[in-house]
C-alpha cells in the first residue's frame, strides 16, 4: 500500500467513526453503577429492557465509590457520565454543591408516583438494602437476638460481636438499643448514641470495613452476631453456613439514581431515569439479586411472588419493622459532624 493510499484509508476510517459517533450521540447515555454481580443483575433486569423500550444505547461504567469521580468530572466542566447509581447521600450533597441536576418530576411520572420519602429534588430511590442484626444459628439455635437491645445485652446473649466501622446505621442501632422507636430516630441524638456505643465497645471483637469482611466473620464463626447487610448474610446462608438475620429494627438504606450537572445527554438521561424506576423493571431486579426494588409499586405488579417478597428489605411489611435512613440528616451539618466524631471514637 502506498503512503497516499493508506492516508486515504485512514481518512475514510476516521470519517466512518465520526459518522457512527454522531448517529449514536443523539440516543445514548452513560450509566454508572458499582459493578460486580449487582451491576450484572441490573443489566438483565432493568438496563437492557429499558434500552430496548426507549430505543437507546446504554453505555455502562462502574466504580466502587462514585463520589470523587462526580466531583472531578463536574469540576472539569465536561462530565462524561450521565446517570449514576450511588448511595442516596451522594445525590443529596451533590445537589447542594451544584454537582447534580435538579430533577423535573413532570418528566418523570414513575418517580413522581413514588412516596416522598423515596425521592428528593435530585434523586429517586433505585434499590434498597438493609443493615440488619445477623447471628450464628450454631450459637443461638433458639431464642436468637431479635433487637438491638438484645445485641447490647451481653449477659442474656453472650458471644462475640461485630459492628460496621462507620457511623451510618451504627448510631441508629445504638439509639434503638437505648429505646428510641425506629420512626422517631431523626434528628439523631448523637451524644446519646455515642454514649450507648461506649457501653458495647469493649464487647466488639471486630469493627468491619468491607461487606466481604462482614461475610467472612459470620461464615468462619469469628463472631456470633453482627450488624451486616442483608444480601451478604443471605449469600453466606446460601453457601450452607448456619446463619440467619432479622429485619426487626433493621436500618433500610438505598442507592438512588441522579444525573450529573451538565450531563452530555441530559434529555435521554431523564427519559432513562423515568424508565429505570418503572414498577415492572424494578420488580425484575429482586429476581436476580437479594436487593429490594426502589419503587414500592413493584410489589403490586405481581412479578415478585409473595415468598420472594417476604425476603426483601423493602417489602412493605418488612419495611414497616425497620427504620428508614434519613440521608437528608446525614448530609446535614449535624450528620457530617457525627461522621467526623466517629474516627476519634474508634481510637479511644
Amino acid at each position, binding site marked *: 500500500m502506498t503512503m497516499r493510499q493508506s492516508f486515504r484509508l485512514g481518512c475514510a476510517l476516521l470519517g466512518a467513526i465520526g459518522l457512527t459517533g454522531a448517529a449514536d450521540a443523539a440516543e445514548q447515555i452513560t450509566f454508572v453503577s458499582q459493578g460486580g454481580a449487582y451491576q450484572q443483575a441490573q443489566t438483565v433486569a432493568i438496563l437492557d429492557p429499558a434500552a430496548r423500550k426507549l430505543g437507546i444505547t446504554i453505555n455502562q461504567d462502574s466504580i466502587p465509590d462514585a*463520589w470523587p469521580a462526580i*466531583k472531578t468530572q463536574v469540576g472539569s466542566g465536561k462530565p462524561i457520565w450521565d446517570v449514576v447509581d450511588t448511595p442516596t447521600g451522594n445525590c443529596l*450533597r451533590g445537589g447542594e454543591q451544584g454537582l447534580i441536576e435538579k430533577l423535573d418530576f413532570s418528566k418523570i411520572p414513575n418517580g413522581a408516583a413514588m412516596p416522598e420519602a423515596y425521592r428528593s429534588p435530585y434523586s429517586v430511590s433505585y434499590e434498597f438494602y438493609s443493615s440488619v442484626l445477623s447471628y450464628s444459628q450454631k450459637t443461638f439455635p433458639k431464642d436468637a437476638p431479635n433487637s438491638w437491645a438484645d445485641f447490647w445485652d451481653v449477659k442474656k446473649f453472650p458471644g462475640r460481636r461485630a459492628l460496621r466501622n462507620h457511623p451510618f446505621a451504627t448510631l441508629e442501632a445504638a439509639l434503638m438499643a437505648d429505646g428510641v422507636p425506629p420512626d422517631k430516630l431523626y434528628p439523631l441524638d448523637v451524644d446519646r448514641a455515642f454514649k450507648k456505643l461506649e457501653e458495647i465497645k469493649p464487647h466488639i*471483637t471486630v469493627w*468491619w470495613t468491607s461487606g466481604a469482611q462482614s461475610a467472612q466473620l459470620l461464615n468462619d*464463626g469469628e463472631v456470633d452476631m453482627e450488624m451486616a447487610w442483608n444480601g451478604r448474610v443471605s449469600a453466606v446462608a446460601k453457601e450452607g453456613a448456619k446463619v440467619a438475620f432479622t429485619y426487626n429494627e433493621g436500618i433500610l438504606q438505598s442507592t438512588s439514581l441522579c444525573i450529573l450537572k451538565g450531563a452530555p445527554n441530559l434529555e435521554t438521561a431523564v427519559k432513562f431515569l423515568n424508565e429505570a424506576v418503572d414498577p415492572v423493571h424494578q420488580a425484575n431486579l429482586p429476581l436476580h439479586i437479594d436487593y429490594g426494588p426502589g419503587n414500592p409499586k413493584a410489589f403490586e405488579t405481581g412479578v415478585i411472588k409473595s415468598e420472594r417478597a417476604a425476603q426483601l428489605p423493602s417489602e412493605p411489611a418488612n419495611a414497616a419493622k425497620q427504620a428508614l435512613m434519613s440521608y437528608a440528616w446525614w448530609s446535614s451539618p449535624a450528620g457530617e459532624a457525627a461522621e*467526623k466524631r466517629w*474516627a476519634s471514637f474508634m481510637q479511644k
Partner: protein
Amino acid sequence: MTTSLSDPSQQHQRREHGLMLALVSPALLVILALIVLPVGWLAWQSIYHDGFTLENYRRVFTEDLYWRSFALTFEISLAVMVIALLLGYPVAYLANSVPKGWSILILSLVVLPFWTSVLVRAYAWLALLQRTGVINQFLRYLDVIGEPLALVHNVFGTVVATVHILLPFMVLPLYATMQKIPNDLMQAGASLGASPSLTFMRVFLPLSLPGVLAGCTMVFVLCLGFYITPELLGGGRTVMVSMLVSRNVELYNQFGAASAVAVVLLLCVLAIFFVVSRFISLDRVLGQK
C-alpha cells in the same frame, strides 16, 4: 592539558555523557510524570483550596486523633523493625556462613513470599490466627488453653503479618553486608586466641552494623505506610496513618485534608532518611550495595 573541543578524550567523554543522558531520560520522564508531579500536586492541594489555607495542617497538628495515629504508627513500625531484626539477623548470618548452594536455598525461601500478594497473605494470617483458626484449634486440641486467644483483629495480628511481609527487606541488606566481611578477619581473631563468640561480638557484629542500619531503615520506613494489613487484621481499632489518609478523603470530601496527612508522613520519612544518611550512604539503604 587544554580543554579544547578537539581533544579526543574530552570529546569521547562528552559523547558518553550525552548517551547516558539519552538512555536515562525515559526513566527520568516516567519518574517525573508518575511520582514528582503527583506528589507536587498532592502537596499543593493540601495548602490550596479556593485560596491558600493552613486549615488542613492546623487539624493534623491540633486534633488528638492525628497525634494518636502517628504515635501508634511509629510504635508498630518500631516493634516490627525490632522483631524483623531479631528474626532476620540469624537467617542472614546462616545464609552467609553455609556453602553457596544452601545460601541460595535460604535466600529463595526468604524471597519466595514476595511473589504472593499482600492481600492473600493477610487472609492467610487470618486463617491461622482467628478464633476458629489453625493455631487456636490446635492449642485447644492440646488442652493448653480453654478459651481461644485473641491473636488477630488487634495490634498483635497486625504486627505479626507485617513482620512476615517486611522480613526480606531486613534479610537482604544484612546478607549483602555480611558477604563483604572478609573471612580472614574472623580467622585473624581466632588465631589471636579469641573465642568464636568474642570474634563475633568484636569483629563481625560491628562490621555488619551498616547492614543492620540499612535493613532497619527499609523496614521502618515501609511499615510507616502500611495500609491493607492493618485494615484487614487490625479489627478496625488499629488506625494507622495511611488509613487516616483514606478516611480523610471520605470525611472531608476533598483531597486537601488527606494530602496534609500524607505530606506530614512523607516529611517524617525524609527526616528519617536524612538522619540515616549522616551515618551511612543512602545508596547502601536503597540500592542494597
